[in-house]
């Protein structure tokens, strides 16, 4: 039994320590907003926050997390950066299929927390790990700038 602090609530889960957080969130806890894309931390669809930092949950063993705070897409709107990112995403109609967008929103929210006014290079560095197959990159960049401007 492992205790995980997710979105402010402690969950006890029955899974081995090597189980990646992604599958605990999705399959055991029903938090399906966090997505599976590649399983090798190459696409960013599974991005969550651990103590406010963006982390790929597909390679993060639950045994390594201890009592650090896990935030998922379902609760990111409760943070100021998350709310601003979500609003900018809607204002600029970033979304197409939407499958990668949970991860994009999480990565962007973490970027704005650490770098409230990112330039293009900051955006490239923070967001290049998140693939969007629909190709919404032009709008993601614009939305991050808009969200930063709203701070």
């Amino acid at each position, binding site marked *: 039994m492992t205790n995980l602090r997710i979105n402010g609530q402690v969950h006890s889960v029955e899974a081995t320590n090597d189980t990646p957080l992604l599958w605990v969130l999705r399959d055991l806890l029903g938090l*399906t907003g966090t997505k599976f894309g590649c399983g090798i931390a190459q*696409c960013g669809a599974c991005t969550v926050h651990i103590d406010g930092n963006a982390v790929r949950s597909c390679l993060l063993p639950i045994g390594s997390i201890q009592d650090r705070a896990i935030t998922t897409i379902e609760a990111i709107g409760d943070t100021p950066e998350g709310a601003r990112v979500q609003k900018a995403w809607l204002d600029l109609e970033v979304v197409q299929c939407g499958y990668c967008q949970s991860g994009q929103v999480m990565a962007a929210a973490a970027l704005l927390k650490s770098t409230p006014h990112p330039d293009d290079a900051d955006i*490239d560095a923070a967001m290049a790990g998140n693939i969007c197959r629909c190709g919404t990159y032009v709008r993601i960049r614009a939305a991050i700038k808009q969200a930063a401007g709203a701070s």
Partner: protein
Amino acid sequence: MNASCNSLDAAGSRREFLKVSVAAGGGLLLGFALPRAHAAEHAESALPPFAPDAFIRIDRNGAVTLIMSQVEMGQGIYTSISQILADELDVDFSRVVVEAAPPNDALYTNGALGFQVTGGSTSIRVFWMPMRKAGASARAMLVEAAAATWRVDPGSCRTANSEVIHEPSGRRLSYGALVDRAARSTPPKDPTLKARKDFQLIGTPARRLDSPDKVNGRAIFGIDAMPAGVKFATLRASPVFGGKVAHVDEAGARDVPGVRQVIVLDDLVAVVGDHMWAAKKGLDALQISWDEGLNAAVSSEQLFNEIRAASDRDGVVAKSVGDIGKALSSNKIEATYHVPFLAHAPMEPMNCTVHVRPDACEIWVGNQVITRTQAVAAKITGLPLGKVLVHNHLIGGGFGRRLEVDGIAKAVRIAQKVDGPVKIVWTREEDIQQAMYRPLYFDRLAAVLADGKITAWRHRIVGSSILARFAPPAFVNGMDSDAVDGAIDFPYDVPNIHVDYVRQEPTAIPTCFWRGVGPTHNIFVIESFVDELAHRAGKDPVQFRLDQLQGAPRLRACLELVAKKAGWGQTLPARVGRGVAAQSVFGSYLATIAEAEVDRNGEVKVRRVVCAVDCGIAVNPDTIAAQIEGGLIFGFTAALHSQITIAKGRVQQNNFNDYRMMRINEAPSIEVHLIQSGEAPGGIGEPGTVAAAPSLANALFAATGVRLRQLPIDRDALAGKKPA
């Protein structure tokens, strides 16, 4: 928004429902008919010629539900179709609810393709007029009901925001209050449609209905389905196409905590567990030996040699104008082009959740061909169609991959061995290696120039026929109309044109549609070769095209606009070039200018792209811009990075580490300029993808003088380290 649907009714019983009647929940149900242009060619041709196809539902409380025959996979179709319906209906758009249609070819046929399918950039083209008529018809019935209630002339009433208003007396009735009376009236045969100037939603950048739930994790895709008691499984099929399981040692898997079951079928192995990690670990712990069969030696080199050899055969003539033999008799300029196999790699890996019971089968999936999903499950389980319940979902990227039901078939076969519902999720590696692929194509071109113009054009296309498998009745006399799509629409004023097609199926490798289908390949080849000819003629590539587009005024206007907006002709730094491409495919006209920079190592940076689009009436201009932006990036990804290669009968690529995607740091700035038009709407999901490779390849030539006649781009050739 959870786009799920239910129908255990057999197709026939559902149809009865369609006559205008009071719906079970109380309210007005309205069906409408679509013209079915190619229906007779399809196996479902026994359908009546004007079968009703979709619904508007208005409840007594005024809630408007629009039932979507077309699936939402990012193209914004739920919103665009809703705009059309809601505009003609005059309903409050903020209160519209959409619902995915159940599987039913009789009701939801795509008139261009003959069954219930979302693809080929057809949705708006096909459903534009029927949706308007449906909206207008329902509106007329509501007006009639209100007029009868008030005993006034319907002509003295108008509608707005889900209300009928009697202007002279100021009386108002909400649609909800009118549904019972409206349901008893007869739908008008030929309802009056709004004039274009009266559109309130059509032509506006209405907010996407699906966006809010996609930024907060609430949207439910197929992979998110969680029926009670669901188990989780993953699978491995023979790495060699067509191979079989020889032996499985299950011992290792049984020791993995959370593993429940190992399933061995003739061509695949699956492990079921309490969660995906247990299933995956279990699968990795199995010792599987394969009987690789006949395809164990197939290689990319062999397939390329076969397709090149096939290009020497005469093809089936797709288009012939003038006297090509005579026109090509001297000063012929020739080139060959080829493009690779491609995987779709949608961000949502292939998946399907299935519950097979003795008397029924229930499926949760996101798929572009929901009736085929139902049919394949019925066939495998032996159940009648009406006992296969399909919940269709939002799709996390289709691009043609989800036009196929190979994954559904595998999932149902696995689920037959499982007691209870099971969610089968492909690993990314399995998704890429056990896919169906955009075909390899090989093209031979020949042309003659005289006085700076093309006087003869011959184009031979060699490749797999997807249509022959996907829609056999559409494959007529050896001609695949998709394989030559774009090529037979050659837009330039050339007196002698000859296009033919040679079918060459690649040994062992399954092929299927991929975003942009035929035109993605053909326009790359055509616009690259036209560019070669412009340079041979010593002409500016834009002017060379303009000079020969007298017969294509809409395309010509796009080209003029894009040249102006891009600043064509400006001086550029060294190793930066601009390339142009023009196309008229999917009922839309595009001219595109890409600007790219090439470093000394041949690395390419696409810097800026400008696109001028005439897609007729723009239902949602913002969605159109988004589709062009995304489509271009999809196409640049392929041109810059993508190819599936085969060795020892296996796909060599694994995951995003070696099947690369364009990332944000590589993405260019993109400007989309829409030309105002009153023409019927064109398709827009695929044209952007089509424009990418030719505009880029022509830009790379301008930057380096190196002509690339194959994809993906060859960086060594661009660096001058080897010939192209």
